[in-house]
């Protein structure tokens, strides 16, 4: 996990979660290209404000490219290929606001803060602990991959079936050992303690949070209202 970027504005993790839920609910009932693009622009502004302009830029480039493919390239392609790619182009373009909202949540929230927020939302510890471990284990996995590929080169392993076997087995054995060690380490740090955990950074809702939250709730309300108005047409 890299450092958390410092942006001009900062949001409460709860705001980002609500935003993600509202956006991903909205795109399922939305058919207007304009609404979709404006949601994306708002999300990009938020991403830039939070200090992840690269993610915002990447989203914009992919969106423009997919729109160009849809309206520029597909009409001139042969029908067979066009129809096939149409599905992918449309799906990805529609899911792009979700990617961006997810990026905003994951890239600008530290694990510790996320854990604290989940606890505040009364998610049971049985779910929070494995969830945090999973997120924490991703970087360790990429190290593992490096070690395994080095070892395979050293032993000159040939053949796909054999290679796959030689990846799976060490991966599972180290995972099993790491799990044992990790559980001893976190037990020593007192994760068994039944009292609620505390965090040095307190989370609180500021003006901007409330603004974004109201907008998200509005979006959700609009989505649900639309679902009832045009029953059967969507979803």
């Amino acid at each position, binding site marked *: 996990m890299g450092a958390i970027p410092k942006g001009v504005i900062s949001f409460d993790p709860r705001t980002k979660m609500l935003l993600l839920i509202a956006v991903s609910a909205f795109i399922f009932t939305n058919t207007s290209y304009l609404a979709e693009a404006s949601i994306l622009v708002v999300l990009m502004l938020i991403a830039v404000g939070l200090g992840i302009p690269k993610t915002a830029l990447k989203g914009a480039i992919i969106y423009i490219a997919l729109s160009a493919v849809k309206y520029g390239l597909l009409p001139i392609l042969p029908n067979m290929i066009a129809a096939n790619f*149409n599905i992918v182009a449309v799906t990805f373009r529609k899911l792009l606001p979700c990617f961006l909202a997810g990026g905003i949540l994951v890239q600008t929230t530290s694990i510790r803060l996320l854990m604290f927020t989940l606890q505040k939302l009364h998610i049971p510890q049985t779910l929070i602990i494995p*969830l*945090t471990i999973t997120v924490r284990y991703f970087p360790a996995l990429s190290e593992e991959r490096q070690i395994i590929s080095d070892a395979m080169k050293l032993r000159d392993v040939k053949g796909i079936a054999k290679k796959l*076997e030689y990846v799976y087995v060490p991966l599972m054995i180290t995972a099993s050992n790491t799990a044992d060690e990790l559980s001893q380490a976190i037990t020593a740090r007192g994760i068994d303690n039944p009292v609620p955990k505390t965090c040095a950074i307190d989370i609180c809702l500021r003006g901007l949070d409330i603004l974004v939250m109201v907008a998200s709730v509005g979006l959700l309300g609009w989505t649900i209202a639309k679902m009832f108005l045009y029953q059967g047409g969507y979803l």
Partner: protein
Amino acid sequence: MEEKNLKVKDLVNIGVFSAIYMILSFIVMVPSMASPIIWLLWPAICGVVCGSIYMLLVAKVPKKGTALLVALINGIIYFAIGECTWTIILSFAIAGIVAEIARGALGYQTTESALVSCGILAAGFIGSPLPMWLFQDSYVNSIIKMGMDPAYVANMLKMISAGSLFGFTAAAFVGGLIGGFIGKVLFKKHFEKAGII
């Protein structure tokens, strides 16, 4: 293994193996998104690739809640990184609950229950291509606007009909079973001798 409830050690095991489960499925996901047909088969491919990971986990943690937690963690992380939509949380939650019921009925220690729940979990991945079915109206509209051959449109729709949804879910289940069998073979060859399980 007298204890019925999940201990911290079990939770950590679930966390670590869920990470591998998710990463492996993610590695397969990236190239398979290039074509809709492969993407529809993605759950089945995931079942084959990830099955053995899950088999080792249930062998290590043969308790109530393991399958559900793996499913929920995968669903939540896929949702949070934005690769998929809320449909994946829904499908994984359903798959997790069904897998738990199957495990409860077949017993937590038996191989059959591990294999069956492995297949059910793989079916949970269907939430990723599910938007293809939900966005159907948009596709139909744009295909008709493009002036396509009606026969071809009908053919396309066949690919994303209710029947095919069931078919691809079943394919995912079979994929999960195959993955589970691969896991069993690996265990016999490596893990049982080493005393890991």
